[in-house]
């Protein structure tokens, strides 16, 4: 059973180093292509956008506006310029969760992907913390006394790990349950019934975990960068 070891597609050599092109990477490229295509379509339609939105423009404006308000409500007006990055993360995670409906292995069911995203959130958190609170943020590492520095450091480094494991575990459990279902049941029940499993594990859990990933990243940023928190 191929649950944890992601299938290897090609091995290419770059300057003597083996680079493995895994299923995750191929699926990530597919999702990136879809997102970039959508972005290009939106960019070309942007010229024809009218004052009063209708149809396609309405959907795009509503998505961006709802997300912007959500970010402003979570991190406040001052930090709201990080909204575009988290919108991209949101779109990517949601689309990769939905991609397992069409039979792709979700890229977020690979720890490398989720850890990369969580590490990006961590870097944003750290940089904004240093930028806005400067010494006060760094002083938080040695908070009651300098002897607590290792514990604070571990607590801080556990943030991206916990963030990535949460998304990874949820996506992987959905993938495993569906793989088991397809492997163990006879052919005649593999038609129609998995749709409910997909709806539950991919759409509901995927959407919820996407929301949770983004809101917890935003909370970390706010805790790091906001004085009055």
């Amino acid at each position, binding site marked *: *059973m191929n649950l*944890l070891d992601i299938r290897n597609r090609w091995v290419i050599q770059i300057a003597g180093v083996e680079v493995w092109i895994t299923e995750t990477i191929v699926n990530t490229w597919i999702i990136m292509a879809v997102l970039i295509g959508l972005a290009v379509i939106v960019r070309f339609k942007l010229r024809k956008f009218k004052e009063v939105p209708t149809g396609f423009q309405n959907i795009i404006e509503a998505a961006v506006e709802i997300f912007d308000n959500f970010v402003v409500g979570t991190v406040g007006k001052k930090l709201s310029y990080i909204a575009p990055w988290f919108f991209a993360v949101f779109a990517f995670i949601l689309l990769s969760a939905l991609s397992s409906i069409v039979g792709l292995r979700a890229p977020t069911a690979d720890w490398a992907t989720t850890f990369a995203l969580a590490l990006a959130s961590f870097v944003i958190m750290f940089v904004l913390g240093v930028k806005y609170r400067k010494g006060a943020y760094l002083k938080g590492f040695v908070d009651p006394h300098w002897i607590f520095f290792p514990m604070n450091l571990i607590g801080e480094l556990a943030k991206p790990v916990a963030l990535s*494991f*949460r998304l990874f575990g949820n996506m992987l459990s959905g993938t495993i349950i569906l793989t088991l279902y397809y492997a163990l049941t006879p052919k005649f029940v593999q038609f129609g019934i998995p749709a409910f499993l997909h709806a539950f594990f991919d759409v509901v859990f995927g959407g919820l975990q996407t929301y949770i990933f983004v*809101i917890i990243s935003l909370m970390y940023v706010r805790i790091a960068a906001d004085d009055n928190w």
Partner: protein
Amino acid sequence: METLGIVISVAHIAAAIALLNGVFTTFGQARVAAQAIESMARQPEAADDIRSAMFVGLAFAETSGIYGLLIAIIMLFANPLVNRLISLIG
């Protein structure tokens, strides 16, 4: 061969024990949801804030459950000890 059988069966038991923490995770999440619903009933006008706080709380409470799940998965599908034992046996 017998040693390998023992290691694999112990790994399965370990996976089952690791999944037992789901009991406590579920209790914690049930508490979060119950309190959130109670406060929503008391203050319906603050329902939106409470709901988003509830989701964050649920996610934090879920972390330990996810850790247990990952340990169980590693025990079953990617157990490092089994591979080491196989290479030791040769």
